[in-house]
């Protein structure tokens, strides 16, 4: 699905042998979109697509980061806690130094918090699931400490500029959507074509083999968490921009939606397998389903049932298709 497709002993072998199982998720996405196109007059409109991508921005950024984490063999449950702290910090910096400084500050703080999370997990050797869960509680606590539990907002005269990320930009998409798409593309290329990406797969696929190949496994994990922190801060920035404010409880639980999107896309939670386009497909499926429920005026209470079933199907398929071959 990704990089070196070397056919050495049999040069005649087709280079891009398309495996239907590999792309099942895309067919699923297309099927849902086709269904909605045929059953609503509003799905296939520019306006709705602008809407779709805007809705996908937050989960999309978190899922892009979660893909890196999961492929490298770790989870980051602290991502939305980092999101909240960096959004709050961004608002506070905005109040003192202006909007641009606020955004930059938010990103720096996000990356710093991510680094701290990574150092904590790598340094303590605690299982990443538990480690980042603990860190997320600490960060949420920190958010309450610095806000006193209140909502923070930029000054009214800053609000227009602060809402930059909701403005239409490229192809009419909101700036937030464009940021998400750009970040997904960049991280996708990192994973696909860079030595760092290769090392992420190796570390997640077999930590000991990676170590014995001279890879600094701890450094890779810290870097992945730092990127996750950066993406969280971007998501926080967009969310705060949209709401015009930030508060300690923002985006609680969305980190799990992001992991769900990654898994639905077909990236193995065991690490060492997967791709960025899969996370994007997973995010779009979740978003399109939610969009469809709205357009069809279906009872949105069933939406969660559908999402849950989808996750189960995706994971079961993962178990069936990626089962390890005997030696």
């Amino acid at each position, binding site marked *: *699905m990704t*990089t*070196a*497709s*070397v*056919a*050495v*002993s*049999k040069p005649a*072998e087709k280079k891009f*042998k398309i495996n239907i199982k590999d792309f099942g998720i895309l067919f699923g996405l297309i099927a849902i979109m086709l269904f909605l196109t045929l059953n609503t007059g509003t799905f296939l409109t520019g306006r709705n697509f602008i809407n779709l991508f805007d809705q996908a921005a937050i989960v999309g950024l978190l899922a892009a980061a979660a893909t890196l984490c999961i492929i490298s063999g770790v989870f980051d449950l602290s991502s939305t806690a980092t999101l909240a702290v960096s959004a709050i910090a961004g608002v506070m910096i905005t109040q003192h130094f202006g909007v641009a400084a606020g955004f930059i500050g938010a990103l720096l703080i996000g990356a710093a918090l991510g680094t701290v999370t990574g150092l904590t997990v790598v340094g303590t050797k605690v299982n990443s699931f538990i480690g980042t869960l603990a860190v997320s509680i600490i960060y949420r606590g920190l958010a309450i400490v610095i806000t006193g539990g209140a909502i923070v907002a930029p000054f009214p005269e800053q609000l227009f500029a602060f809402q930059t990320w909701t403005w239409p930009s490229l192809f009419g998409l909101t700036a937030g959507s464009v940021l998400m798409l750009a970040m997904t593309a960049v991280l996708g290329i990192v994973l696909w*074509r*860079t*030595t*760092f*990406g*290769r*090392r992420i*797969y*190796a570390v997640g*696929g*077999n930590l*000991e*083999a*990676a*170590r*014995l*190949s*001279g*890879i*600094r496994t701890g450094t890779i994990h810290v870097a992945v968490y730092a990127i996750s922190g950066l993406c969280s801060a971007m998501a926080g920035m967009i969310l705060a921009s949209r709401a015009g404010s930030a508060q300690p409880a923002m985006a609680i639980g969305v980190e799990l939606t992001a992991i769900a999107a990654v898994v639905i896309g077909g990236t*193995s939670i*065991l*690490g*060492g*397998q997967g791709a960025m386009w899969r996370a994007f497909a997973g995010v779009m499926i979740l978003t399109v389903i939610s969009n469809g429920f709205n357009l069809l005026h279906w009872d949105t209470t069933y939406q969660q049932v559908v999402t849950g079933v989808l996750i189960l199907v995706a994971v079961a398929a993962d178990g069936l298709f*990626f089962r*390890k*071959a*005997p*030696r």
Partner: protein
Amino acid sequence: MATQQLETPEHVRADRAPEITVSGIGKRYGSSTVLHDVTLSVAPGEIHGIMGENGAGKSTLLKILGGAIVADAGTVSLNGRPVRITAPRDSISHGISLISQELALIPGLSVLENVFLGRWSNTASLLRSRKDAAHFARLLDETGFDLDPRAIVGTLPIGQAQQVEILKALARGAKVLCMDEPTAVLNEADKAQLLQVIRNLARTGTTVILVSHYLEEVLGLVDRVTVLRDGRHIVTEDATGHTPESLVGLMVGREIDFLIPEIPPVPAGAKTVFEAVGLTSTKVKDISFTVRAGEILGLAGLVGSGRSETLLAAFGADRVTAGYVEINGRRTRPNSIRDAIAAGIALVPESRKEQGLVMSRPAPENIALATLSDRSLFGFVRIGREKAVVSSISQSVDIRGVRQGPIADLSGGNQQKALFAKWLLSPPAVLMVDEPTRGVDIAAKALIHGLIVELAAKGTAVIVVSSELEEVIGLSHRIHVMRQGRIVAEFDRNASRDEVMTSAFLK
């Protein structure tokens, strides 16, 4: 006793163990045949030894009997009646129990709970441990083991844990015990006790089928012996009349002669490339030796003697507490794998699956992994260049089927060759290989041996670790024997198997 008999299947309740016949058993993994048309039968109450080199298919045959692996072809019959064994529970219900090298015990539970695992006496689901305790006491009487039923299994020494396995099998009414290398992990006293227990069990009508590497031990114990070679049945004969030498002859066949190529002598005046000085870690003590350019040094010894750990310490992978390694006179930074690699050391580790390969990734990515930075531009992999070098190295070590799919899909031999290829992309000054041909077929084995000799001929200093004595002796210019973390003896390549074996064992 009541419980045991209630739960023991009818035909096993008979006093005698069944006669076991396997016929035409075959098993393949991908492209490599592990067992081919193996037929043999074992009489009731017999102690039967299955011998062969590593990879001969002994363990696979036992696992098929134990239901851990399903055969592709052939049948297993008990007293002439074919039985279907597709899972461990099938075997157990026929009275066959498999005791593997990796014990299948639950470390957090007590001895008693493990022995009656899943079949605890109960009344309406309430456990009746007193009844189990009584049954346990009877089992201890029968076997002569001395075990505390309340001890937590995870805290027991390995010898006692193995006794728990045996009791577990007996508690399930096993009439046929299949044991895979039962003495490999035991000390002398435990070993002697186990052999006595096996004799007692056989006397009371239990059949024991045993896989072991220890020739003298097997000959002193078994009634009959079967030799497998490369997955094929060679002979089944009475043990009396066989000597360790005659067995080795059967196990190795004539293949050994052409398997290991002629190794050219080390050129006079070849300079020292590798030097370990007083290398000490938690597993090895005060290891000092040198390897010259073009020389192959073999490290022999029993499993756990510190051979692999010497390599890991020299490679910077195991924490070194004292001593150092010099490559071409430059001292490497201790505990830094990266510095070891930079200095020109390459390590082909013992276990492909655990230490060597990223099984979920394609072969080319695995081959490229250790030298990624050599072919990168601003952090990007130079795909074209990578394809070129990977494909040329793959051709030169003859890896078949390098493609996009996970390397897990390739045969063991091709995986092993990929592991070599990975370190040959940038030719190392020192090549350390640990069990270079474990679990690969004969053809791949010959190719890997050829590769090692060829590298040495080009001036690489090579260190070979292998459990196959013939391999170490045949491949090396000199041999160091290790025991309990130290080098205890040195031989040249004319050393006999016996000399090396003798120094490897504590006498």
